[in-house]
């Protein structure tokens, strides 16, 4: 029986309303007043592996990935697998760097990525630069997240709502949701991530697997029926260059932990074990979810209705397979993923504004620090919401530009964690040179430079950035006091039992000590 348009819209929008209501109930029931800024910013490092795993996934895979990954698989074939691969390698990177990052965080009460920079390089200036790069780079992606909800609501209305109205509905809904993010800080983000994550990635995976089975049995499609171009990733003779796929995966892996919202996840765990257990728990789900999504896109590319509009593949398949009910459920999983991603980004921006920018210039007690973070979150939410309602012609270009820029933090971050010789001058110079060069190259060669063999602007700039960093480390070695401080810092995580005096001495001599 074919339902009328209003009936179909009631079904899809009711499912969205029910989910939204459930999220609010979860948040209301979980509310706990924060006792310190550490409590507000990183939930007092109190979460175990289960929460950590789901919180990471909910920040890592935004709701738009349902559309982006299926769309990429429909249009570009197996190249879309680069996302699952770099996402898994990012977890490997997390596994190997967690020991030092978490331990330093616990010992020195670090709350953000710039806090780590301040401790490692004894430089508040570099922490501020890192913080600004993270916040500025994140805004275009937040705006894209808000705008993505416009696509969601237009699809759920089956075209009855125009694009502008759909964006406004999405922006209003997400802005309302941020009330609880601002009120509850990190605790609210992580607890809601658990619920949203179960819906988005466990519920989403079940829908994806069901759709794959439906495509195989109802339409008789198979991967062997795909065209050779869909089964080939850019190789040695590819027009985009032989190193293009390497570039995508490499910048994805090293860039993953440069995002403030992702990095702060390392400080919400109650132990190193919880972070690493979360990696082991989350990786199989991430693998299943993302690989199945690509395979769904590949199979769906054989349907003319889907191939005609790759970006809407997710909604088209859901509607074809299960009518308004499955379309509504498909919308719920997208909304769940988007909420987790937007919440995480808004919270991390607020924490960095209070901790690393305002806190660098003013001595803030707990209440003032939390208030600064809340005002920062509100400002970021309102700015992103407002920008989402505007027509920004180069928004996607800006987002790509910001990604090429933020990966420049990878050099001081990873070399700072794994190598003792890097210094503040090298980290500042390298990051600034890399950031400017990445933006210059991306602007000059938006489709990639022909002479670069497929290396993207961000990767090319990373090479220069790393050369500057290493050059400064070699030519400008640490003074004796700084060398001792860095050696002591590393010794704390190398299996030696540290004395409280040693910890206190490092904290006292570093800029962290001044703000702790």
């Amino acid at each position, binding site marked *: 029986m074919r339902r009328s348009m209003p009936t179909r819209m009631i079904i899809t929008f009711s499912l969205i309303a029910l989910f939204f209501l459930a999220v609010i109930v979860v948040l209301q029931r979980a509310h706990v007043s924060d006792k310190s800024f550490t409590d507000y910013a990183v939930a007092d490092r109190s979460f175990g592996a289960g929460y950590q795993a789901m919180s990471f996934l909910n920040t890592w895979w935004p709701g738009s990935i349902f559309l982006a990954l299926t769309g990429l698989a429909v249009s570009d074939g197996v190249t879309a697998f680069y996302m699952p691969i770099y996402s898994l390698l990012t977890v490997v990177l997390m*596994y190997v760097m967690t020991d030092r990052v978490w331990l330093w965080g616990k010992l020195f009460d670090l709350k953000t990525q710039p806090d780590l920079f301040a401790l490692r390089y004894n430089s508040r200036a570099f922490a501020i630069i890192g913080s600004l790069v993270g916040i500025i780079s994140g805004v275009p992606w937040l705006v894209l997240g808000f705008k993505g909800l416009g696509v969601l609501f237009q699809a759920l209305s089956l075209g009855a709502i125009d694009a502008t109205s759909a964006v406004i509905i999405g922006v209003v809904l997400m802005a309302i949701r941020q009330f609880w993010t601002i009120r509850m800080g990190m605790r609210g983000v992580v607890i809601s991530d658990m619920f949203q994550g179960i819906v988005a990635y466990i519920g989403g995976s079940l829908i994806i697997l069901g759709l794959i089975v439906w495509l195989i049995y109802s339409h008789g499609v198979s991967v062997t029926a795909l065209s050779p171009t869909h089964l080939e990733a850019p*190789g040695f003779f590819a027009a985009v260059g032989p190193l293009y796929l390497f570039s995508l995966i490499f910048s994805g892996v090293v860039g993953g932990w440069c995002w403030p919202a992702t990095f702060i996840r390392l400080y919400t765990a109650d132990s*190193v*074990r919880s972070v690493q257990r979360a990696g082991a728990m989350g*990786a199989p789900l991430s693998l299943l979810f993302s*690989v199945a999504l690509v395979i769904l896109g590949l199979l769906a590319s054989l349907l003319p209705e889907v191939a005609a509009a790759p970006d809407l593949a997710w909604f088209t398949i859901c509607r074809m397979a299960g009518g308004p009910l499955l379309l509504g459920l498909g919308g719920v999983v997208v909304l769940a993923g988007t909420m987790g991603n937007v919440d995480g980004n808004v919270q991390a921006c607020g924490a960095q504004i209070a901790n690393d920018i305002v806190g660098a210039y003013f001595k803030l007690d707990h209440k003032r620090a939390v208030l600064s973070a809340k005002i920062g979150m509100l400002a970021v939410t309102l700015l992103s919401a407002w920008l989402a309602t505007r027509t920004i012609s180069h928004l996607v270009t800006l987002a790509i530009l910001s990604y090429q820029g933020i990966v420049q933090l990878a050099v001081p971050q990873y070399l700072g964690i794994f190598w003792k010789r890097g210094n503040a001058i090298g980290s500042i110079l390298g990051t600034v040179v890399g950031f400017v060069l990445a933006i210059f190259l991306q602007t000059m060669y938006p489709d990639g430079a022909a002479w670069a063999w497929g290396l993207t602007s961000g990767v090319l700039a990373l090479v220069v950035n790393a050369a500057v960093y290493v050059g400064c480390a070699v030519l400008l070695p640490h003074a004796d006091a700084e060398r001792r401080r860095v050696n002591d810092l590393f010794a704390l995580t190398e299996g030696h*039992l540290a004395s409280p005096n040693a910890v206190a001495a490092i904290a006292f001599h570093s800029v962290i000590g001044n703000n702790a």
Partner: protein
Amino acid sequence: MTNMPTVLRPRSAYIWIWFALDAFLALFPPVYWVAAQPKPKIFGFPCSIVYFVGLGILITASLLAAYWDDERRGAFKVPVAVKNKP
């Protein structure tokens, strides 16, 4: 000092080798130039799909092995990171 974190002992060499293999198979261009192609077919599936799905499973397995190994060798049970006297 019960609230102080634990310090891990060095990880097993074979886990590091496995992690390095993950990175090599994903990032060394000649590997994907050869493997991410439609042919040959392996068990009836295109080589590129077998390569990417197999690589994803390999990386996931390495994470599970690393965690299992850390638990087995008691890496998470090292008592405290900070001793009471300097």
